């Protein structure tokens, strides 16, 4: 037994050492998560508007076009539970914070990152934003939450790390205020096709209550601190709107109306079928491109500043 245990430990020790070295190699590469974490610390004394949400705001809300200093802390596929985590993490560290922007689309009230095919992104929150504290005990111990290598496509990670370390090629896609530059200069995809595909994907998300609880928690905590919450339903092309499950759209509006009526600090900006957004403003049927982002950002900024929103 002694010999067996010695050999097992030796095997594990060698393997873990090599693994740790590889993990160190790939982990040091700056990415959008680590960059936003560092940038919000740099600008935290000035930030008055905190933008949360998923790709709708990541690509659609450019702080450059807001009248007040804004920071975009949205990420692709970020669901309301992660919005809540980020809000709770930073709300007391932003002394000038006045407004929180949360995109509410038909899928928002049911979608959860951890139950989707994008669940691997949780590791980014755990490693770069300290999300591990929010995990249940057994989940805290799960290896996959801490290892960058354990995520899929190891060869791509090594290639990225090599490019960064040898050629200083950055893989950060956001600007210093958190807006993603990925849609800069992109052309309009076939909107009818992308609209139908996206609507089909979003309509198959099962009903859940947790996202609604997370949204309510954000609003209540904001109210206690005298902060405004602006729920923005982002613009979408008609091909997406027409193929969505009607019930999901009605449910979304009903829930939003309930929240607006219940909480005096909450307002809703509905741009879902806004005619100001034309075909050239869209990257695909439910995401705006850089041109649409400028338009969307100015509209949100004006809404925040208008007397009605107080």
């Amino acid at each position: 037994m002694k010999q067996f245990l010695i050999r097992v430990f030796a095997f594990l020790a060698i393997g873990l050492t090599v693994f740790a070295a590889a993990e160190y190699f790939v982990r040091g590469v700056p990415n959008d998560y680590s960059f936003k974490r560092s940038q919000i610390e740099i600008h935290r004394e000035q930030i008055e508007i905190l933008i949360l949400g998923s790709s709708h705001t990541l690509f659609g809300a450019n702080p450059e076009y807001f009248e007040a200093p804004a920071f975009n802390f949205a990420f692709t596929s970020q669901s309301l539970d992660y919005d809540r985590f980020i809000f709770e993490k930073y709300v007391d560290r932003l002394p000038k914070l006045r407004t929180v922007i949360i995109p509410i689309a038909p899928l928002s009230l049911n979608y959860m990152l951890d139950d989707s095919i994008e669940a691997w992104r949780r590791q980014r929150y755990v490693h770069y934003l300290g999300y591990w504290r929010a995990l249940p005990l057994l989940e805290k111990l799960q290896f996959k939450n801490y290892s960058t290598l354990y995520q899929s496509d190891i060869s791509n990670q090594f290639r990225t790390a090599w490019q960064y370390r040898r050629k200083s090629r950055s893989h950060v896609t956001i600007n210093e205020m958190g807006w993603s530059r990925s849609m800069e200069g992109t052309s309009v995809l076939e909107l009818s096709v992308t609209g139908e595909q996206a609507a089909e994907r979003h309509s198959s998300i099962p009903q859940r209550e947790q996202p609604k609880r997370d949204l309510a928690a954000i609003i209540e905590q904001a109210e206690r601190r005298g902060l405004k919450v602006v729920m923005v339903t982002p613009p979408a092309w008609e091909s997406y709107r027409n193929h969505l499950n009607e019930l999901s759209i009605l449910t979304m509006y009903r829930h939003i109306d309930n929240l607006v009526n219940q909480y005096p600090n909450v307002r809703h900006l509905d741009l879902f079928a806004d005619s100001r957004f034309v075909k050239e403003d869209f990257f695909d049927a439910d995401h705006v491109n850089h041109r649409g982002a400028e338009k969307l950002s100015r509209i949100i900024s004006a809404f925040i500043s208008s007397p009605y929103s107080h």
Partner: protein
Amino acid sequence: MIFYSLEFALFAALAFGLYWLIPQKQFRVQNLLILIASYGFYAWWDWRFLALIFISSITDYLVGLLLGRAQGITFRRVLVGISLVVNLGLLGFFKYYNFFVESLILAFSGLGFELQARTLYIILPVGISFYTFQTLSYTLDLYRRKIEPERDPIAFFAYVSFFPQLVAGPIERASNLLPQFKAERRFTLEKGKEGLQLFLLGLFKKILIADNCAPYVDFVHANYDTVSSSTLALGAVLFFFQIYGDFSGYSDMARGLGKLFGIELMQNFRRPFFAQNPSELWQRWHISLSSWFRDYVFMPLTRTRLGRKMPRVSLLITFGLSGLWHGAAAKFMLWGLIHGVKVLAHRGLKKSFGTGFSFFRYPAVNIAITLSLTSLTWVFFRAPSAADAVGYLANLFSMSLFSAPEKFQYSILIPILILLCYEYTQEVRNSRLGRAISMAATYRPVRWATYYAVLVGLLATGTDTNQFIYFQF
């Protein structure tokens, strides 16, 4: 807890440590630890179903004691009948109740009557098909006076619930497993190494083969009416590898864990891809189940009047029931019957022409034919229904059979080829490749490099994996 989860790693490490801290002479204490650990393992799945495994165990323990004393044939039959009623009753209710109700409704409606019956929402307890058959084999062997009754309740309960094989087999025989719980177990370095090697092999099969094949197989079955014939053919073959990787992977992990606890579990798969005919396939595939049905269904049937007159019917009944064991649906029974027909056809051809399905001089050709026929039969197993399976096979034979498969990533084949090479060296031990690998394996750096390579492969596969297919049985 699945075997490659963090919870199981912690559980197994704790159980292993405590187990071997107990002095070897005190194997009864070790049995008690196994029992507690096994019931804890099962409770982790669903604590509500602990009662079922307890009922099955206590019934057969008591029946066993009484069978040890009973001499009269009638009383002995009554006792076995009690065991059969309890175990098959549990299995029948939890697994087949809705199937029977729906079949009755269908049968009556075919005769023009509307039967008012309701199905129930019944959760299938994990492993029930395995442990009920395991305890039944004990009482049936006792009835036949092949073994002596077990008086030690802890040893018996540990035999029934031994956690490595509890939820997905192998279905152990009392004559193999029970004596091991009545003797001292010794830990040796060789057993430890073999145990870990088997466990790693099982992980390789499950994660790198089964889970890699699964998405493509799902895609093919979801689109069987639109994809090309070559895609359908590939999907059928890949499902064979998927279910082999899944099930034999689990069995290997179970055997590996057993070895770490000083227990030898039976081999459940013996390189089925090298079968040269349908009969041989069933000597290599799910050996514990096929031998169970041979010994407790087929052989008794052949001793009945009907069985003596119509042995082929006995074989078909056995295969049909074997298919039904896999799932409460007509397609599983059909799957079993098709296998039965193939075995009968092989035997018939062998009787008439001397070669059966093994027509050709070259084993490779016979293997390819058997693999192809078996893959086609697996379509019934995988398809949502028998009608879908028929539709799948109907679309299989067209000119697009010779086109390139759609949306196929050839990297899926790499672990499959590695597995086949490894199994070839096990099948043909005197082959040049086999001798070369055996020679290389004597060097620790080579062995460790292989283990690390497998672990890197497992890591590279990344995040979530699929549930074991056989957990649903």
